[in-house]
Structure formats: structure tokens, C-alpha cells
């Protein structure tokens, strides 16, 4: 066949393909599916739905828990759970925002997202999340409505826009082989850093953990009256004191403070390779698995600070344009059930702290938690949570990050 007409045919075929691809996609759910009014409507609507849960894919235990424990449990209720691994929760948010910008109000690709306070706030800024739905979940009754960690996420009121999943505590982690007398306060930590130059560093904000460390340092560096949590901005003097303090640490930090690890993964790698003696995490649940795997040394320990550390909860949020709202609600409810929360709290499975209020559980449900193996490395939540500080308002986060990058980093 002559080449000329062959290429013409090709162009025609390509155009046809283009036109075909541009035809509106058949929505995979009823367009304009009404949000269920009560729980029985939700469970019946959820039958046969496929829920796409977008969550950070960097924790193999998390992936295994969702695939092998949670997914079968919701399958028994008629919902198929599909896990979409992303390198950063922000990718999920970007997808939702793109759909918003394209005026896709109904069949979004994202049905459920594992969010932290920062992403939650970003979504709230653009009304990305479905709200006022968590009251429908029967298992929500097992949580304490007065729990400050569950009613406000980084200072942003939850307002029924996200369902709690697990609690987290910011913890410092150290290698007991290197640190003979572990510091018990922030000031003692400062002294240890000065005595052991080059063995401490923290991830550069805007990394989530690094940002948490800077916030922790802010709390430690200011008097209790100076920080008004209701203000839109942190007190300028406190911030200045903080930045001066962190800058004074620079000469004694890893690489003399010329650079900082870009994210927590890089800091953890330094810790694992014995280049620094401390690391930190907002999810101490991962420590058991890392030590067991041999990534972290067996002498890894958690450093409890006398004055307590920041604590918060992480949640599951449903985007407002999800096509499988009922199914997503069923998944969120199942994730909140005592059976799932206990399975998740087992250090062998994932080790995440529960959001449930043990007082509200029946005796058998409570026994699920009592039976959990105790971790050698991670103390109980009660110990970690002692004197816990509430998270700082989310509006403060970008301010602190910008200030840090402008003063300490450059």
C-alpha cells in the first residue's frame, strides 16, 4: 500500500480515536447520587460499590493492613476497597483540586483519603471535603465527643468533615548505644547536641515531621502565656526567639547546619546508617517493624520528654465529589470498629494507636485491646501522651515554615 495514503489513513484513525476518547465517560455511579440520610440507606447504597482509598504508599505495614485486613472486612459488607498508593497525600489533593477546577462535581476518582491536619486545612480552603457525615457512623459513638484531638484537627474544627482513624504522638527517637544519659527535656537535648556535634539534625520544613519538630521547639522556647492559640499568627517575639535558638544549634548539627535532610526518609536513613544518633517521628508505630527488619539498630529507644510532646489524630476524609459516598462511609465506619482498631494497634500488624474511648467499649471489646502484645521500644500511648500538647493552629504552620527557611536555612 502506498505510503502516502497509508499515512492519511493513520491520521484519520488517530482522529477517530481522539473523537471516541472525547465522548463523555459513562459515570460509574448514578449521577447526582444523593448523600444517604441514615445509616441503613448508606449500607444499602454501598452494596457493590468500589471505593478508591488514596493513601501514602511508603509504609509497607500500612499497605499490608489495608490490603489484608481492612479490605476483606469491608468486602464482607459488600464494598470493594481499592488502595491507590501515592508518594504524597498532596497528590490526592491535587487530583481533587483539578477535578474541582474542571467543574467535575460528581464522579471524582478519589473516594477516601488518609489526611493529616495540613492536607485537611488545604482541602477546607477550597471546600474539597464532604461535611456533616460522620454522625451517621454507628462506631463514632465509641469515641469520646469531648476529645480535643478528635474535634479539632490542627486547630481547624473537624465539623463532621472527616472521620478519625488513629492517634499519633510526636516522638524523638534515639540510639541508646550512642546516648548514655538520654536527655529528659528540650534544654537537656540542647546541651547534648552541643556536647556531641554532628550527631543531630532534623528534616527541613515543609516536611511534615520537620515542621512538627519546629512547632515542638516553639512550644518549648516560649512561655505558656505567650502562645495564644486563637490568634492567626504566632507571637512574633516567640518566633524570633525560636529561630535564634535553632540558628544557634547550626554549628553543632550534622554537616554543621549547612544543609538539612529534605524529608524524614533521609533523616531515617542517616539514623539507620549511624550518621546521627537521633531521629524523630509522628508515627512511632513504625518503629517496631523497622527494628525487627533490622533497618534500625536494636538499641533504638523512644525519648519521652517530661514536658510532653505534640499529639494529634489522623483522619479519613471523603471528597465532596466522590461517586461512592455510601461505600466510603461504610469503609470509614469499619475502620472505626473495635475489631479493626485493635487489629491495627497490634505492633505486628501496624501498631497505630486507637481513637476509641475504652470507657465506651464493652468488656469483650476492651479485652481485644488488653490482649495486644506490648512493644519493647514504643511505650504505651498513655505514657507517650502524658502532658501532651495540643497541636498548634494550622494557620501558623506556613508562617513558621517560611520563617525557618528564610532565617535558619539560608
Amino acid at each position: 500500500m502506498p505510503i502516502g495514503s497509508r499515512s492519511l489513513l493513520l491520521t484519520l484513525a488517530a482522529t477517530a480515536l481522539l473523537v471516541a476518547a472525547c465522548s463523555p465517560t459513562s459515570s460509574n455511579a448514578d449521577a447526582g447520587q444523593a448523600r444517604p440520610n441514615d445509616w441503613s440507606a448508606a449500607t444499602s447504597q454501598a452494596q457493590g460499590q468500589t471505593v478508591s482509598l488514596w493513601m501514602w504508599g511508603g509504609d509497607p505495614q500500612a499497605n499490608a493492613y489495608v490490603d489484608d485486613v481492612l479490605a476483606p472486612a469491608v468486602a464482607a459488607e459488600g464494598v470493594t476497597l481499592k488502595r491507590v498508593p501515592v508518594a504524597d497525600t498532596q497528590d490526592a489533593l491535587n487530583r481533587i483540586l483539578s477535578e474541582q477546577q474542571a467543574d467535575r462535581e460528581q464522579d471524582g476518582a478519589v473516594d477516601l483519603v488518609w489526611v493529616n491536619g495540613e492536607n485537611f486545612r488545604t482541602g477546607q480552603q477550597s471546600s474539597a471535603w464532604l461535611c456533616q457525615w460522620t454522625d451517621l457512623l454507628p462506631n463514632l459513638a465509641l469515641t469520646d465527643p469531648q476529645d480535643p484531638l478528635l474535634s479539632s484537627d490542627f486547630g481547624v474544627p473537624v465539623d463532621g468533615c472527616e472521620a478519625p482513624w488513629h492517634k499519633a504522638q510526636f516522638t524523638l527517637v534515639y540510639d541508646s548505644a550512642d546516648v548514655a544519659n538520654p536527655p529528659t527535656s528540650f534544654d537537656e537535648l540542647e546541651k547534648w547536641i552541643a556536647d556531641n556535634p554532628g550527631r543531630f539534625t532534623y528534616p527541613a520544613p515543609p516536611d511534615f515531621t520537620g515542621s512538627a519538630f519546629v512547632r515542638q521547639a516553639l512550644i518549648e522556647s516560649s512561655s505558656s502565656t505567650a502562645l495564644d492559640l486563637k490568634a492567626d499568627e504566632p507571637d512574633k517575639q516567640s518566633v524570633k526567639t525560636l529561630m535564634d535558638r535553632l540558628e544557634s544549634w547550626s554549628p553543632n548539627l550534622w554537616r554543621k547546619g549547612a544543609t538539612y535532610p529534605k524529608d524524614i526518609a533521609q533523616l531515617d536513613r542517616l539514623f539507620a546508617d549511624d550518621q546521627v544518633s537521633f531521629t524523630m517521628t509522628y508515627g512511632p508505630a513504625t518503629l517496631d517493624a523497622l527494628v525487627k527488619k533490622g533497618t534500625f539498630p536494636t538499641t533504638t529507644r523512644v525519648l519521652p520528654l517530661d514536658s510532653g510532646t505534640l499529639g494529634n489524630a489522623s483522619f479519613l476524609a471523603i471528597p465532596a465529589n466522590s461517586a461512592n459516598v455510601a461505600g466510603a462511609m461504610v469503609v470509614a465506619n469499619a475502620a472505626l470498629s473495635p475489631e479493626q482498631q485493635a487489629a491495627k494497634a497490634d505492633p505486628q500488624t501496624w501498631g497505630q494507636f486507637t481513637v476509641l474511648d475504652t470507657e465506651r467499649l464493652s468488656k469483650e471489646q476492651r479485652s481485644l485491646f488488653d490482649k495486644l502484645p506490648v512493644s519493647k521500644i514504643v511505650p504505651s500511648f498513655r505514657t507517650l501522651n502524658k502532658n501532651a500538647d495540643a497541636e498548634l493552629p494550622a494557620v501558623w504552620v506556613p508562617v513558621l515554615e517560611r520563617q525557618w527557611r528564610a532565617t535558619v536555612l539560608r
Partner: protein
Amino acid sequence: MTLHTMPVTRRQQVSTSPRDRRRHLVSLLVAALLLLPITPLVAWSFAEQWTFPAIVPQAWGWPEQVWNAGTVAAFATSFVLATFVACAATMLGAMAGLGLRRAPRAVSTAASILLLAAAAAPPFALAMGATVGSLQLGVAGPPAVAMVLVVLALPYTTFVMRAAFAGYDESLEEQGRTLGMTSWMVLRWIRIPLLLPSVATAALLAFIVGWSDYIVTVLLGGGDLITLPLLIAGAASGTGNEQSLAFLGMLAIAPPLMMTTLAFGLARRYLR
């Protein structure tokens, strides 16, 4: 140059002069340097525990975390996507490469700039814009991803093929015809053997674009396409995943490598 003096046997000249031995040594060194960065991946794929200061892993083991159905599915999805991108981009690129040579100068320059422009934009910007745009047009995820990836691969395929056609001596075809070859024989014995290395290179580059893309797949695909790069990016963002990461990396290298070996083997067969 005639058909008879086509240089097939150049490398088969046997010679062990010191110059050749030195050259052989340098070649080995260059090859080793090129392969050096891949070596940690090979070792890490089977290292369950390998911390400082051990030179050899403290514990060996099979990468169980990634040895599951999810990885196989992602591998298959990546393969299908990459193969499509390779075929489409090579075909379009070959035609465009030839067309650029034959077109008048102004058109050729303008078209070149357009075709190269896709390589200029940062991929995540392109992905964001294309996501919004394709959502508005109502295009489904996977076809949109395929199309964007083809366009991202076009700069590479077009110009590899353009360079190939630039070096292509059409008088060879004339000689073949005067010798009595039919069009099909000209295609089989002259055109294909001479162009095959470049086509293989172009196809390889296009395959890699489709095979290793993360941001376009995750944003445009809308969760429908879970490919190998998504698994790799997820593992890279976590702690203690070196073994999984290395193994996935090795897995990612295997198919393109096999395909290239196949293509060059075929090329050698053609040249006999």
C-alpha cells in the same frame, strides 16, 4: 558506496596489537563505569538488612514485601501502557522525522519547535494542566495518560528518526532497483536493515517514557492506572524500603533491556 562493500565484517578483523588491547581495556572500563551505579540496586534487591558499616549485607532474603499480586498487576499495566506509547510514538515520530526533512525550511523549523516544546515544560506542570483540561473534555483517564505520554515521547522519537533519515543514502535504494529488486525486497534488504537500529533506539526511548512516568499517570489516571512507578515512588518516600525499591528498580530495568537485546539480535540477523 555499493551494496557489496557494506561494512558488516569490520569488527571481525582479528588483531591483537597493543593499541587494540589498550582499547579493549578502556572499553571494559567505560562499560564498568556505566554499570557501576546499578550495582547497589542488584545487591540491595536481596539484602534484608544492610546497615553501616557492613560492606556485605548482614542478612540476605527474598523481597517478600513486593513479591505479590499487586506488583505483578502494576508490572502488567506498565507494560501495556509503555508498549502502546512506544508503538504510537515511534510510528508518529518516524513519519514526522521524514516529514521534517522534506518540508520547506520555515515549516520544518516551526514544526521542530512545536514537537520539541513538549520536552520544555516541567512534567508536573503539563500533568496538572492536562488533568484539568482532559476532565473538562470528559476524556477518560487511561487514554488521556497514553496520549500525553506519546506527546512527551515524540521529541525523542522524531529527532532520532530525523537523524536516521538524514544519514540515509537513498541512492542505495536506486542501486537495488537497478539490480532488479522489487519494492518489497528493497524494503526488506535495504530500508529496514539500515533504519532498524534507529527505530529500535527510538522505540526504546519512547518505551522508557511510558514505562517510568509517575506524575502524569497519578494525576491524569485518576487511580485507574496503578503502574510500577507509582509503587516505586511510594516506596521511595518511606523508610527502610531499600530492598523493595531496589527490587522494583531491577524489575523496571528488565523488560526494556530484554526488548533491546531482542531488537538488536533481530537486527544482526537481518544484516547477515
